[in-house]
């Protein structure tokens, strides 16, 4: 638009329309900060995609391919990976029949003379030696009469065979059904062959019990501390001390809690319970070694700050008028707390609980010192009195990932299992955290009076 002559005394006007001075450094700045967010999001998305796709793929029934190699060897395999070097890796099954007792092969693709997908090939899940790939002739009294990929007959003992799936006959829906069956078996079965096969049921139970017990222990304590900070305390040096303690407790590395748990709970309290309360002979331990109770107590200590912070936020969200109203009606502080404030702070408390649970479900380091093991012979709950055995060692999903992924002799063979466990754990924690974040957002909205 046309500029009018400027009045006397006023500075010369610059035109309002843009484009006169490109703000290059500003643009670069904004885009650089945007790059940080984009980079982080990209990494996160790729991370989730990797874990979940591989976790899901672990249950996907791949068809059995018959490979004939240049030396005449015949294999029935599920291909796993192709490498830049031209090698292919595939799962052969039939561990006890393979040279070197390996159920994976990695060979140059050029060695494969012919490939086909035989309709009648079966995949047999077995109690030992991993899966069997071959052909089923008949089920007789003395077991399953099968043929190896090269046609050699074998008999599998009936009690070794868990299920027979003719996966090459399945259509898409059949495969999907099998996928769901596999997932279900993974969740509901015990691990076999020192964790390299089978499911994670005991780890699920162990994690749940641990988290449950921890919640029972941490909630009263955490809520009390938060109530103290928010409702009872004035701004004294002691309150500041409590606050600093909460903050620092949140910052203490989890392994230090584990060290404390081992030293104090297991070796200290455990010994005391065993020898002073239960009167066990000095060479016998029951509570004097890691167990469910000590692991839960350690986790409870670790999650106190989580509960305190979330509960405090919930308490702050209760409007001032409401608590003053209650007090004005002649309620004691306790009554106001019980009937007005705590119910109002429920979302915050619940948020704290969920966050604590998520934290405990994902934490491993302190647990491996205080009572979580890679393979527990029995569940801590059973039909025997007192039904819940607090002194027993338990399995845990997070620790399961560590032991299976790092203490197995054949890492390649268990990789799908580890991805599946990781996906399960991640899914669990994401759902918990998402719930907590949404609830917290609601609390915060109320806090801001929206």
């Amino acid at each position: 638009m046309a500029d009018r002559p400027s009045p006397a005394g006023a500075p010369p006007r610059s035109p309002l329309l843009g484009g006169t001075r490109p703000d290059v450094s500003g643009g670069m700045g904004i885009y650089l900060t945007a790059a940080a967010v984009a980079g982080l999001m990209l990494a996160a998305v790729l991370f989730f995609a990797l874990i979940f796709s591989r976790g899901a793929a672990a249950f996907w029934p791949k068809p059995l391919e018959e490979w004939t190699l240049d030396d005449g060897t015949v294999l029935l395999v599920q291909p796993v990976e192709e490498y830049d070097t031209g090698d292919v890796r595939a799962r052969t099954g039939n561990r006890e029949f393979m040279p070197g007792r390996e159920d994976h092969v990695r060979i140059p693709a050029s060695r494969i003379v012919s490939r086909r997908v035989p309709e009648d090939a079966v995949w047999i899940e077995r109690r030992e030696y991993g899966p069997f790939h071959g052909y089923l002739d008949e089920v007789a009294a003395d077991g399953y009469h099968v043929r190896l990929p090269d046609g050699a007959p074998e008999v599998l003992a009936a009690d070794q065979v868990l299920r027979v799936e003719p996966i090459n006959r399945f259509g898409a829906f059949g495969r999907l059904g099998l996928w769901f069956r596999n997932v279900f078996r993974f969740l509901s079965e015990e691990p076999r062959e020192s964790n390299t096969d089978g499911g994670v049921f005991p780890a699920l139970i162990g994690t749940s019990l641990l988290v449950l017990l921890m919640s029972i222990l941490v909630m009263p304590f955490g809520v009390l501390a938060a109530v103290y900070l928010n409702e009872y305390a004035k701004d004294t040096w002691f309150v500041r001390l409590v606050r600093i303690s909460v903050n620092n407790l949140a910052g203490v590395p989890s392994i230090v809690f584990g060290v404390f748990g081992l030293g104090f709970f297991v070796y200290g309290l455990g010994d005391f319970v065993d020898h002073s309360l239960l009167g066990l002979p000095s060479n016998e331990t029951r509570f004097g070694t890691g167990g469910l109770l000590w692991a839960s107590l350690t986790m409870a200590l670790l999650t106190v700050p989580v509960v305190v912070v979330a509960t405090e936020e919930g308490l702050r969200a209760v409007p001032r008028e409401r608590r003053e109203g209650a007090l004005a009606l002649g309620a004691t502080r306790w009554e106001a707390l019980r009937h007005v404030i705590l119910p109002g702070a429920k979302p915050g408390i619940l948020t704290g609980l969920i966050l604590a649970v998520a934290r405990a479900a994902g934490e491993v380091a302190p647990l491996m010192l205080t009572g979580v093991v890679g393979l527990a012979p029995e569940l801590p709950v059973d039909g025997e009195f007192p039904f819940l055995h607090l002194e027993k060692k338990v399995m845990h999903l997070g620790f399961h990932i560590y032991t299976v992924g790092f203490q197995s002799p054949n890492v390649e063979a268990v990789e799908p299992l580890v991805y599946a466990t990781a996906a399960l754990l991640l899914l669990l924690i994401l759902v918990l955290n998402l719930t907590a974040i949404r609830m917290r957002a609601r609390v915060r909205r109320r806090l801001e009076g929206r």
Partner: protein
Amino acid sequence: MTPTAVMSEPTSHLGRIAVDSANRRAPVEVADEAEPIVRVRNLDFWYGDTQALFGVDLDVPKGQVTALIGPSGCGKSTFLRCLDRMNDTIDGVRISGTVELDGQDVYDPRVDVVELRRRVGMVFQRPNPFPMSIYDNVAFGPRLRKELGRKELDDLVEKCLRSAALWDETRDRLDQSALGLSGGQQQRLCIARALANQPEVLLLDEPCSALDPNATAKIEDLIFELRGRYTIVMVTHNMQQAARVSDVTAFFLKGRLVEADRTEVVFTRPSKEETENYITGRFG
């Protein structure tokens, strides 16, 4: 979020003022033929689904002080923030109508908001000096554009502080934190800071509401001083203040401009009943 700019002819709205120079009694200092520097037409404004302004038409005369009065929540601050597009920084707002500065619609998509805000200064309700030295506060605007040398900048800072009647109190501690000033001094510093951009229009959003009477008096003196050199639009809920310092008064009620006229007219012979009720203190 893209504002729709609708050029529309002034219509016979409730709050339209008749800018009829023949009818006006001009104050001594102001030139009689004061042309409007800001021209607002048919301005509607929404916060989300809530409409806050309804078809406001207003001309702001150049070099004069325009006071916006009205009960709280009537939209006068919102209106003020429309003039330099400060409302852009709030999520979920919508605007229609036109706001012209010197004949250029400021809601034109091609308009550089940064440039607009340089030419339209703003002072907020609460004094908000930056946590830096007094000098740096005043020099903030000019430094953004890196146009001035060290000497020129020193001169400008002094000039602006003098204009804001703050020079004598701060000349010895220009390098000290602005947060050490009193509330009134802080607000005057904010005015000085705005002046350093040499704006054409200065928007004051209840500049005295957070201040004590002494400080308020000083700010009012300052506004009186600045009149003529700058076009000033100020929001106030204090009618005496409006009567004391303004040339033109606009009365807002429930998002509508009820009446706008020479201040003495509004305060002595309001043409609307709502205005009279408000001024005589019957509500508000």
